């Protein structure tokens, strides 16, 4: 328990000491990758990892069940809309039981691990690996083809969002901090999305943002959030790369 407690506490302290990082939003994709020019593309959405809460004055996140449930709903609707506009078919990964459930849980965990490696060692500065500077080659292994069979999908889309809205107390502390010349951030809004080719297991695209916009608790905000999450999403072969919506 020691580290467990110390971590949020230290994190809270750090937030008072350090000014907010201006971390850029970043995306990357497998070199030369594009979705097939014609024919249907079926994208399986894995149950999005959604967490919404409120940030206390001291920086502790208070998970909020209502906000999270609403955000999960709104993000689902927004995702459906966004993919339809790209003429991709979207299906939800069903809840699985037994051996299939274990398989799915394994790949969810593996995706998280691989994504963390990409975030830490490729996308954001600090711990970038020299060997990964030029290339983008990560894979979950060809075993993902089992998930393609189960779901009937070509690609797997993973979504993660974490929101901690600054409480009134936090905002007050931010104001007082500014008077004393102490930079205090209020609110944490991060997220990422990744696309995996289920036939080969290759990670073909990833997009992460440490300072996301859009209030996920309502429809308009969720649309904005999803469009930010899907910024630079792979296009069909032959189409010009469009700028972010």
């Amino acid at each position, binding site marked *: 328990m020691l580290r467990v*407690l110390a971590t949020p506490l230290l994190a809270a302290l750090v937030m008072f000491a350090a000014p907010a990082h201006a971390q850029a939003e970043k995306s990357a994709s497998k070199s030369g990758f594009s979705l097939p020019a014609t024919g249907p593309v079926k994208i399986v959405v894995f149950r999005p990892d959604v967490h919404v809460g409120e940030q206390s004055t001291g920086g502790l996140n208070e998970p909020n069940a209502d906000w999270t449930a609403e955000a999960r709903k709104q993000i689902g609707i927004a995702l459906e809309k966004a993919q339809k506009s790209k003429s991709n078919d979207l299906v939800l990964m069903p809840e699985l039981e037994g051996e299939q459930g*274990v398989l799915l849980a394994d790949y969810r965990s593996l995706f998280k691990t691989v994504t963390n490696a990409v975030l830490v060692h490729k996308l954001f500065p600090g711990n970038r690996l020299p060997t990964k500077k030029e290339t983008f080659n990560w894979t979950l292994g060809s075993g993902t083809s089992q998930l393609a069979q189960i779901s009937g999908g070509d690609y797997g889309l993973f979504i993660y969002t974490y929101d901690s809205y600054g409480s009134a107390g936090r905002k007050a502390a931010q104001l007082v901090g500014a008077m004393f010349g102490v930079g205090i951030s209020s609110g944490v809004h991060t997220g990422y999305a990744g696309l995996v080719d289920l036939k080969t297991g290759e990670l073909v695209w990833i997009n992460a943002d440490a300072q996301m916009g859009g209030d996920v608790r309502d429809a308009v905000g969720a649309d904005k959030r999803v469009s930010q999450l899907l910024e630079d999403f792979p296009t069909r072969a032959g189409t010009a790369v469009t700028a972010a919506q």
Partner: protein
Amino acid sequence: MTFASCRHVAGAVLGVMALLTGTVAQAGQAVEAAVPSAIGYQPRDADERGLWMEMEEAERELRNSNFVVHDPALNAYVKGVLCRTVGEMRCSAARIYIVRTPYFNASMAPNGMMQVWTGLLLRTRNEAQLAAVLGHEFGHFEKRHSLRLFREVRSKTDAMAWLSFLPYGVGLLAQLGTLGSIFSFSRDMEREADVESIAYLTSGGYTPGQASAIWAQLRDEQDATAAERKVRSRKDKNGGFFASHPNSGERMLYLAALASSATAATRTGDAEYRDAMALWWAPLIDDQIKLNDFGATEFLLGRLAGSGWTSELLYARGELYRTRGGDGDFAKAAGFYRDAIALGSTLPEARRGLGLALLRTGAIEQGRTMLKDYVKLKPDAGDRAMMAMLAGGI
């Protein structure tokens, strides 16, 4: 909320999950609300619902994890012990997940998700000791400790935020004091759960003294680890100011005192525990051997063998000595494997171990014969190709 302090990364991760959840009710509520084990209990305010939601997400992942032991017999046994301890009416509120990890701990989330680690099952010696652990964790649940700790951390860190504006180091000192009070609060809740565990033990008919015995054993094991590594025992080191749990020596003493004034009950369930764990000793000892903690493993094997060395324990001891591979260890290991086989061990791996140990002692021909036996006995073994090569070809 956990049973012991987490010194390992896995522990910390699981601990975070435990911390994130909680249940309702601050002290001083006018009406005593229903306890979380009550049928149909639902979290009652935003804090509690938020923590439950986070834990439900965590449980969704844990349920299908490869680390969860799904053996129906073992799960039924542990659940049965919990039900006997806290009562049939209450125990259905807890969902037990036996997690395959060789460390000593258990945890309880406020929504009723309980984790029992296999390293704990390897160390508790009887049903009463297991009951003491389950009772402690259930006590956290009933007393809504996760929620109370969550609120404590929030209010104290809020205070620390304002203290940070005080000049000349005054704020920093005050912050440190506040930080310390959070850990002290955590230790108080652990003591409360320990007190609960004694009450549960006696109501379940279990000898209450076994709760204290767990800590005595663990301290002896820590001594054994230290002696082998030629370092000072860490049994009294638990973080001091930043300790989440009371020191194990303190727990041992106050649990013994509580037990001596508790109603006398006599059940220990030694035989029942041994039977329930019979098929699990070997794999769990194997996990323990891989921790590369010779002293503790030898200690655990010795006390499991208390009433006599079985072929499984001898095999495990052979593995332990062969893995260490120090001066004379291969000869000793070969002896243990031979004893295991003489006692009727049919484990192909006993032949493999004997073969490998013999090769290292220079008895090449005998060693190869044993490895050939192994490959014959287990033709689909994952290491078949390697063993066949070491056997000089099959």
